[in-house]
């Protein structure tokens, strides 16, 4: 099955940067109500404006291999990167996942995220793959970061 790329299975078995850590600037809890998958995600940010950097992303994910692996790739791709770049990565990931298989994804932008290209062909799984990424943008917003340039990042699911 092309859906379960080796990379996805590896990330889901050994999720990178998993667990909840201090310090953090915002914490969110997102749910996929159709299947009950949940992620609690914390984000740490330093600096402001164009100097803002994602210092940490820590998370506790409970869900299918796609959603867990996706949070793992997210953490890998955004920790230590400028916020503006991280938002670009989120956007690229979202574009690929919602393209119904039309966009294969650029490895230089989304890294291991390219392994999720196959997910776009399974509409029921796109939400699984986006869970952590949506939680991340929501957490950034709560941490006081302006996420407005990418207006398509309306939070999906429930946050608390």
């Amino acid at each position, binding site marked *: 099955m092309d859906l379960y790329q080796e990379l996805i299975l590896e990330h889901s078995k050994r999720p990178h940067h998993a667990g909840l850590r201090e310090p953090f600037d915002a914490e969110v809890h997102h749910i996929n109500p159709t*299947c*009950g998958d949940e992620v609690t995600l914390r984000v740490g940010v330093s600096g402001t404006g164009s100097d803002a950097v994602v210092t940490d992303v820590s998370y506790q994910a409970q869900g*299918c291999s796609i959603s867990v692996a996706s949070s793992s790739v997210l953490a890998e791709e955004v920790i230590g990167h400028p916020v503006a770049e991280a938002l670009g990565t989120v956007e690229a990931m979202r574009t690929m996942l919602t393209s119904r298989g039309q966009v294969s994804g650029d490895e230089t932008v989304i890294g291991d995220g390219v392994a999720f290209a196959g997910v776009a062909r399974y509409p029921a*799984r796109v939400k699984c793959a986006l869970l952590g990424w949506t939680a991340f943008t929501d957490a950034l917003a709560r941490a006081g970061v302006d996420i407005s340039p990418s207006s398509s990042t309306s939070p999906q699911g429930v946050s608390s």
Partner: protein
Amino acid sequence: MTDVLPFTDGELAAIRGDFPILARTVRDGRPLVYLDSGATSHKPAPVLDAERAFYEQHNAAVHRGAHQLAEEATDDFEAARATVASFIGAPADEVVFTKNATEALNLVAYAFSNAAPTDDPKDERFVLGPGDEILVTEMEHHANLVPWQEVARRTGATLRWVPVDHDGALELSGLDDLLTERTKVFAFTHVSNVLGTVNPVTRLAERAHAVGALVVVDACQSVPHLAVDVRTLGADFIAFSGHKLYGPMGVGVLWGRAELLEVMPPFLTGGSMIELVTMERSTYAPAPQKFEAGVPNAAQAVGLAAAVRWVEALGIERIHAHEAALVDLLQRGLAERPWVRVVGPTVGTARGGAVAFVVDGVHAHDVGQVLDDAGVAVRVGHHCAWPLHRALGAPATTRASFAVHSTAAEVEALLTALDRVPVIFGLDTERQAS
């Protein structure tokens, strides 16, 4: 008891031939193995034909207008009511057509909250307030839980529930403390849509009636799979969906005892449910019209009646025996796989047409995806029974559910596809080592 003969291969082939959708393929040309009838059943050709014939020949707004089409449409709709009612052993005027079971359950729940004390005299049995209790169970589908949570919130009544034990049965040892003089309504499912557990409706209804509570039974997973007769069941209300009974989407049924329907306040109000309307106030038509506001779903009701006739021609007892044999086959197959844990009653205990299971270490979504890749359609997730899954300690399960057209070969197809799961996800199982 009469002997129930299994379907012959010829009969089963003919049954399958009635379902146009079973001829299609999925995922690159694989035959469709549909094991999700618990979510919604497929529709045999006579149902599709009946719905189409209604639109082609009699289409009109029922109970409105005096032209010939209106008369015919009304006759068709009322005949459909009689057919569905007789299937569950009820008089026709005790059957209310709704959109689905969810609406039917809300109709009853709203009768309780609409009976809030006002100047009008109200039937005491439907009046809820602080100190009163609503009893449900931990295995309810959200459709028979959330409406009661809402009623409790609106009226100040307290919601209580019967827990589920390790085998997926209701834990009834504490029932005396839960079902008391304070209980005004006991709402529970006949057959669990996840566990397959068959609850002892008659016994529970007796206990509820002894303390003066009304009994609401969610019959979604029983009416399509086993003989249900409201004359002996003991419930005061039952609700089920047409679309799980080989009928069209958009039609459900509420059955209620005539004397209760008579005193219950309406849920939705508007056209067709009135007797007399002035600018200030209105009086209502007798049941069942009182509960069918607006132009009803006549074509779907007609389709559902065709489904019921189709089921009756095969015999619900034979359908039940057929499905029970498949449930047993699947349970035995799963029991041979130590990496699979079936939830609900053990092999040999009476069950509805569903079997849900967990593959430890692999999320149900992933299990379902592997099955889907082989053309096997099952349901994954919490199946609208989130509190139950919490109680089971499983955030999600994979559920196979059967219908009259299901076959032993399809059970095999499921098991074969399932064996790829430990391989793909690298589970440490004996099977994998061998």
